[in-house]
């Protein structure tokens, strides 16, 4: 028998604290698989955000930081400037990256900081109890938008990939999803490219992964994936927003 699928080396044996069916777990695994495949586990430094993935430092089997809420790109910059030859990635939620950390991610991209960002967009603040995120959809309810997001009051959901793709310093920006095995495969390819772009020192790279939060969306894990497909993807279209020439081809 040949093993076709097993736990990647870049994950520790720890059980995660994620809710059942939360796709944070899938995304962790993809990142770990890519690190394994690129053979850079011992060269990699990861940065966990504040958010549901705050304990990612216990799950990735690499040197890790826990960063203040929203500041992972700044922390990554500090690390990368000290160790330009190491692989540095941030793993951030939508509250972390698109709200409090807006300035840090935009300026990391503007600087063309040679880091990889995994941006987990679940359209909600998972960790703190289902508050509205900058990416919460119009009409979607949240504990701080109990009647649904109203653009007249709370404004419009923000599309970070589109914004970052406008910046010359950003080398690779893609949006993927993990709502079925096919999309998971594509997501992994994007994550791999985002790490390769860093290894080739092309500039800033980010993969936005649409992710589910069954708990705060109030749905079963399966219904949550459906909701993601039916509601998030229309507003957050999948695809590569920006890539170096070679990657595009």
């Amino acid at each position, binding site marked *: 028998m040949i093993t076709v699928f097993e736990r990647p080396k870049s994950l520790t044996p720890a059980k995660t604290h994620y809710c059942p069916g939360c796709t944070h777990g899938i995304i962790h695994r993809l990142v770990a698989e890519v690190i394994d495949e690129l053979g850079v586990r011992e060269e990699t430094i990861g940065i966990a955000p504040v958010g549901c993935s705050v304990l990612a430092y216990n799950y990735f089997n690499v040197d890790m*930081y826990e960063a203040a809420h929203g500041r992972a790109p700044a922390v990554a910059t500090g690390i*990368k400037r000290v160790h330009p030859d190491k692989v540095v990635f941030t793993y951030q939620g939508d509250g972390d990256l698109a709200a409090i950390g807006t300035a840090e991610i935009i300026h990391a991209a503007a600087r063309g900081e040679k880091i990889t960002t995994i941006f987990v967009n679940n359209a909600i603040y998972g960790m703190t109890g289902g508050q509205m995120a900058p990416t919460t959809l119009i009409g979607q309810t949240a504990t701080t938008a109990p009647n649904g997001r109203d653009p007249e009051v709370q404004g419009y959901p923000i599309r970070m990939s589109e914004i970052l793709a406008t910046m010359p310093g950003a080398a690779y920006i893609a949006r993927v999803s993990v709502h079925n095995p096919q999309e998971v495969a594509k997501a992994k390819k994007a994550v791999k490219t985002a790490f390769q772009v860093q290894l080739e020192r092309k500039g800033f790279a980010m993969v936005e992964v649409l992710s589910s939060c069954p708990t705060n969306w109030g749905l079963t894990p399966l219904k949550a994936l459906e909701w993601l497909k039916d509601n998030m993807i229309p507003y957050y279209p999948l695809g590569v927003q920006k890539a170096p020439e070679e990657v595009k081809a």
Partner: protein
Amino acid sequence: MAKVLMKGNEALGEAAIRAGCRFFFGYPITPQSELPHYLAKRLPEIGGVFLQAESEVAAINMVYGAAGAGARVMTSSSSPGVSLKMEGISYIAGAELPCVIVNMQRGGPGLGSIQPGQSDYFQAVKGGGHGDYRLLVLAPASIQEMVDLMGLAFALADKYRNPVMILGDGTLGQMMEPVEFPEMIDPDKLPSKPWAARGAKGREPNIINSLYLNPLELEEHNLKLQAKYAQMAEEETRSESYYTDDAEIVLVGYGSSARVCKAAVDQARQQGIKAGLFRPITLFPFPKAEIQAACRQAKSVLTVEMSMGQLVEDVRYNLEFKVPVHFYGRAGGMVPTTRAVVSKITELVQEGGRSA
């Protein structure tokens, strides 16, 4: 090395380089901007990195990144900018990372003014951020001392794995004085930092972190931090006592106010008043035994600050209310004059140093 005439801010920059610092992350603000200007030029020349961050918040978190990665790293700002760093500083202290933070204080509160101030004393010594952390705080009073303390700052930061603050003010940053620099430290020859995150090659992963979900563990972590602070109090207090041996009145001041105090002591002595000066150099840990010794024979103490009264609380606290402690402060960028301090001394001596 020959003496050179140099601005405080620039001298601090050169001193950091001599101390083996090769990384600076900061955001411009008056009256400290000559420090980044200097380093923007010098650091790349010697293979270091100068990076202007998008904000003070980003800067302090870059410092967190670089410090965790094992580098000697520094940031610098002035009052409002330092306030923005409070969360980040609490993280750095919580994660036990060594770094140096410069605050060239200006008048406050709010936007205040860009003139010199000393009204961030509490913020520096009590921990303006959340949680029971402390900075080791050094208060130079001359450009030469700024240079000397910068070397010490990096050494202590590494020794304790704790952020060290150099608390200056606009006067010290802007003025020029003759200064001599120590030899260059080669950062590659510093002791290695096995806890640093630089890739888990052949070892278990290192984790740079301040989160402890289990309260018992966080309490233990806090006790460990407290033990460090106690050790600092044991080993690192520094101060200067000037004519305190027979002083009836002891002035207490730090940084540039202490310079004014010293001149006032000289003038008072000329007038036959037994005045002395106690100058804390470490503001945290506070030189408690030293101030008690210096004030043992004093009938009164006069604290002089460029603030509305912050250091004075620590003076009273550390003297345990055994001597009446008086206060003379200016605020908002006003600097005490020697004349005013002398007249305050005369007044107190005439009163017999009674009521506090």
